[in-house]
Each structure stands twice: as C-alpha cells, then as structure tokens.
C-alpha cells in the first residue's frame, strides 16, 4: 500500500459504529422510532422496509405523547450490521421521523410483549392449563366451562414457551401485540 496508514474499513471516529463491515452475521435489532403522529407516517415506515427489501420481525405503534402528537414505532428487524446501519439511516431520512434508536446497541433495554391465548378443554387438560398459567404468571381474563383466555406479558421467548406448552392442552387461538421496548436506566 502507500504512505497512508489507514486501516481498511475502520472508521473509529465516524458517525457510524462499523462493527465488522464485511461481516455477514445476521443480527436481530430492536429499533425505537419516534415519529409525528400524522396520517401516512406508518405507511412511510413500512413502505421503506418493503420497498428496500428489509425484514420486519415485529412491529408495534401507538401514540405516546398526546400533546406533542408523537407516536413510537418499535420494530424488530434482521440483517447484517451494514444493512442495519442502512435501515437506520434510511429511517432518518423520513421527514416526520424525529429519532431513531437502536436499542440493541445503545445499552441494556427491556423488551415486553403482551399476548392473549384461548385454550379449550375439559378435565385434566383444563386443570393442567390453569396450573401452568399460574407458573407463568398469566392472568385469566375470560373463562367459560370449556375455555380460558389467558393474558400474559413477557419476553417473546416466554410467550413462545407458554404457547408451546398450551398447544397440546387445547390452544386454539392466540393474539400478540408485538414487542414494546425501552432502554434501562435514566
């Protein structure tokens, strides 16, 4: 090479945190996007993902600041580090997007999902479902003689685990909110 002593692909002082730039490791990232709560803003965000071929694993959105007309969109996406950086930069270009936070790299965070499970059954199966629900701290929010609706909040893994257990016990329907996430600490 030449007189220049610049390590290839290193941009230590950059606006970007380039972990291995050529890395092909696919990572899951949770992005929190603060947007103006106006017509079409969700379509802009989703259109960006579909138009540029990015993944959406989970998506939640709701207004979080009524006075300021701000909504928070939480998206779990997958990609190589370079793709994740591109996604964040592309999101930043959308005019009504105020902030984009990558909760996965910005320090510890908590992620929760709410799910509802409808489980039907009688006899032992019904008792077993109720017992497991207690262990998982799921609440019973509706019950008939043949069915329960359980409500559970937790990590996606916990919800998956509970669903796996309920399936042989009569799980017939399930609704999940997708992930909501916040960074830890102040």
């Amino acid at each position: 090479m030449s007189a220049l002593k610049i390590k290839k692909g290193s941009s230590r002082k950059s606006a970007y945190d380039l972990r291995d730039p050529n890395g092909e490791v696919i990572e899951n990232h949770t992005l929190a996007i603060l947007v103006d709560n106006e017509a079409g803003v969700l379509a802009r965000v989703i259109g960006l993902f579909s138009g540029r071929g990015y993944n959406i694993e989970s998506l939640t959105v709701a207004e979080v600041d009524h006075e300021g007309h701000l909504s928070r969109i939480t998206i779990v996406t997958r990609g190589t580090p370079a793709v994740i950086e591109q996604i964040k930069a592309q999101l930043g270009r959308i005019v009504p997007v105020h902030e984009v936070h990558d909760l996965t790299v910005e320090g510890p965070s908590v992620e929760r999902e709410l799910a509802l499970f409808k489980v039907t059954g009688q006899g032992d199966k019904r008792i077993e479902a109720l017992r497991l629900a207690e262990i998982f701290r799921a609440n019973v929010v509706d019950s008939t003689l043949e069915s329960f609706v359980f409500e559970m909040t937790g990590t996606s893994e916990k919800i998956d685990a509970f669903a796996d257990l309920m399936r042989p016990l009569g799980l017939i329907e399930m609704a999940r909110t997708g992930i909501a996430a916040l960074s830890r600490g102040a």
Partner: protein
Amino acid sequence: MSKTMTGAKMVVQALKDQGVEVIFGYPGGAVLPIYDEIFQQNEIRHILVRHEQAAVHAAEGYARSTGKPGVVLVTSGPGATNAVTGLTDALLDSIPLVVLSGQVPTFMIGNDAFQEADTVGITRPCTKHNWLVKETDRLASTIHQGFHVATSGRPGPVLIDIPKDVQFANGHYTAPPQADTKMYQPRVKGDIEMITRLVEAMELAERPVFYTGGGVINSGPAATQLLRELVEATGFPITSTLMGLGAYPASGDKWLGMLGMHGLYEANLAMHGCDLMINVGARFDDRITGRVADFSPKSAKAHIDIDPSSINKTIQVEMPIIGDVAHVLEDMLRVWKSRGRKVNKEGLTKWWKQINEWRTVDCLSFKPSEKTIKPQHALARLEELTKGHDRYITTEVGQHQMWAAQYLGFEDPNRWMTSGGLGTMGYGFPASIGVQLAHPESLVINVAGEASWLMNMQEMGTAIQYRLPVKQFILNNERLGMVRQWQELLHGERYSHSWSEALPDFVKLAEAFGAKGIQCSDPADLDDAIMEMINYDGPVIFDCLVEKHENCFPMIPSGEPHNKMLLGEASTKDAIGNSGAVLV
C-alpha cells in the same frame, strides 16, 4: 397579521411569497379554482405543457439550470399519475421540485370519485415528502414547508395534494416566516475531527483523486468555487460522475474527464489505482463502481455527503463526512492551509506521470468517415461550433447521452441537464424547455436520440406557443442504439425490437408545428447545417442521420471492475460474463 382568503388564492400567494416566477402545469377539474386565481394575476407565469410528465421534466430543467426549485401544477387522477415518472426522476437525481396536485373534495375521498387517485399513496415512494392538505388553514404553511423540505438537505421533489373543497374554502394565510420549518433541519457542518483526518491523508497520499458528483452542483456556486480552489491548490486529479459535469471546468489541466461505465480510460484507471479517493457529493452508484468487490481495491476512501444514508450504502469508507459540500470543503481548505499546505510532491509527480501515460491511449478517438456522419463526430463539431456560446445542454437517454457527456466540455455548473439516476427517455426535450424559460437569451440544445425524442415530442407545441428557440439535435441512428449495443454484446446479436421503424419525417414534423426542420446526412454539410441551427431564431429540429451501428466506448461491462474496460470494437468478444448479463 393573518389574512383570510380562499385556499386557491392562498396557493398563488404562497408561490409569490416563495419568489416563484414560473410554474409548469396542465389544468383539470380538481384545480380549476387555482387556475382561476392564476388567470387574475400577472406576477407568476404559467407555462401550459402538453403532458404532465413534461411539466415535471421542464421544472427539473428549470431547477437544475437556476439552482431554484421548479414548480408544477397538475390536476387529480391522471394529471397526478402522469407526473409520477418526473417525480421519480427528480428523486433519483436530487432535484428540488414542488408539485401541487388537485384532489377530489375531502368528503369524496375514498369513494372512487371521478378522477380520484390515491396521489399521496402513489407518490410516497417517489417524493422526498408529500402532504394531503385537509384544512385550508394549514394550506399555506404546508406549501412553505414544501419549499423548505424540497430545497434543504439533499434536495428532492415534494408533492402537495389539495382537495377541491380546500381550494374553495376560506382560511387564514400563513406567511413564510411563520411557517414551521424546524421540523426538518439537516446537518450541514461536517465533523471537524474527521475532516482533519482527511486532510492528514491528503498530505501523505501518493495517488489521490477527487471523485465528484451532483452534490457539488446541488450545494451551490460556493461549493464549485471551493472545489476549484482546492484542486488547484493541491494539484490532485479530479474526475466526476455524469451528474457532476461542469463543477470543475473541462478545460482545466487537472480534469480527467467523466468516470464510470462509459467514462474515460484515465478517469477509471485513476479510480482503480488511487491510494486516496475523495468522494465529494457522489454516491458510489453502480454505473460508477462496476463490480463492488473489486472497486478501487487499494485506496482509503473519504465520502462527503449531506445524506447519511449514502454513506456505507454500497462502498465502505474509512472517512465518512456528513455535511453540505460547500461547508465541508471550506473547512477542508482552512485546515489544510493552516497545517502548511502540504502535499506529497514526489508521489504526485509519479502519479501524474502515470495518468499522462493513460491519457496517451486517447480513449475517445474514433474512426471518422467521409460517407456517413459518426455520432461522435457530430458532437465534436457541435462542441467546436457552440463552445464560445452561452450554452446549456440537455439530453435524452441512450448512446447519444453518453457521447454528449464524452465529447462536450462543460466549463461551469448548471449547464448540463441529463437524467442520470432514472435514465428517463423523454426527459431532454421538456427539460430544454424549462432551461430556455429560465435563460431566454441563451443557446439551449437538447442532444437527443430519435427514439427518446419521440417520447415527449408533443412539447413542440409548448416550444412554439412560448417562442422558445430550443434546438433539438437528434442523432438519428434509426435504432434504440443503447439497447442494440447491449444486444450485440450480450445477446448474440439478436436485435429484438431495438430499431425505430415508421419514423416521422422530422423536417416535415417541425414544419407542421411551425418550427424549422433541418436534415443532414453528409459529413461535408455538417458544419453549415449546425450553424444554420444555431443562427435560426426559433425552435429547430435537427435530424442528424448518423452511422447506425456505432457502439459507445469506452465501456465497462456490467459486473466488471474498472480495469476491465473495453476500448473498442476489437476487444468486445465474450466481454460480458454470465454474472454481468443479469445486471442492467
């Protein structure tokens, strides 16, 4: 101080307050109230095009040749959908436009009303931002925001959809200073530490090259001045993308010519062999990089761009600098001067020796002919005969576009308008109309291919109506030449639908519109014919019958690196591999 007025009046008032002089448009039911207001004033000039796509391209030509935003007015439904190609073109080339569209009344939206289209839905991915205005009170501030968004940061087209009842209703007018523009404030100053690192690299580099793009021109005249100063002071070679031609003068001795797929040998080899690449306002487009894995393998790269998403999108760089080109160049110059104006003299001398060797290849040489006009020859003559003029060039898309970029020289920015990112056939003619409106006394020439030109030929009516002396210089090879070239190189010479049949008699066509037509087929007559075109006071269609099977070289085949460039007919056999064939 808020005044009450109708929405339609507000539109015109807002445009006046934004300093708009010309709008390009086409009326229809959903914009009649606005047209009624246009009728009742004389400050803003409305240019009636013949197709809404042309309105947008004309506005692009206006914008690119002036640095001011172009303004378009179209009706709902088909008016808006016809504008989509132009919007996409402006988005890809970062051209500031404000497009106003009529919409069915708010109470009918969603009912499949007559001429209803989901305009904000359709144009969301092809605008920088768009708005549907549902309250007259918010109309003026939205228009002001539209101008702000279109022109700040990386410029681009915006669209404002205005339902007819909003145009009729009364509301409060918001003047520009009262409009909220805080919502969008891109950063313009670059990180000074990173700039200093780049300057350090510039002091040491043995084989540096400036790789510049449309961002320099978009940044404005200060950017061009600073770039020229920096190039002269450092003595570094400079090349540019198709979009950036004119930022550095073609007559300058540091100029390597355009780079990329049809760029010059010396420019592409300098990119391939450099040890420091300084990208100023370009975006590592695939026409530039060729095969990404082999792109400039030995260089450290700096990238100056106002759009963070451009950085590390395709090419990883060591020195990313997010900011406006003029701001960053100013800091670079200041830091470089304050550190003692150092460059690696020894390295540079060797580097220039190498570059001058590459230059001797003379990659733009071509075999002239006494019998037929070679397209390269036609452009070389056009250059020679128009060089001294106050000249603006637009182009269509195809071989003629690449030849124009190769054989015409641009001494100043904003003089070259071509569809780079989208490659839109039909761009050049309406763009030339927009340019001529902005520069009534200048010589405006659209270098066209016969096929592209036909795509928006209806604009002859516009040129005649507004007495716009635009010169349509058609390199007529009776072929979709660029398609034919690819079929020759890539698809076994099977020329599937790539010829222009049933062409009109262009001279008669010109005359039918009331313009002048000139045809030329003999190289011996060419100069006189070109002079006749230049000297004619009015629009001219120049039908230049050229060699039909000429290929455009140099060419980097798709999927190949820069050093695998083809220089001429001899080297084309099996040049494009299978992996390249799937690329466009």
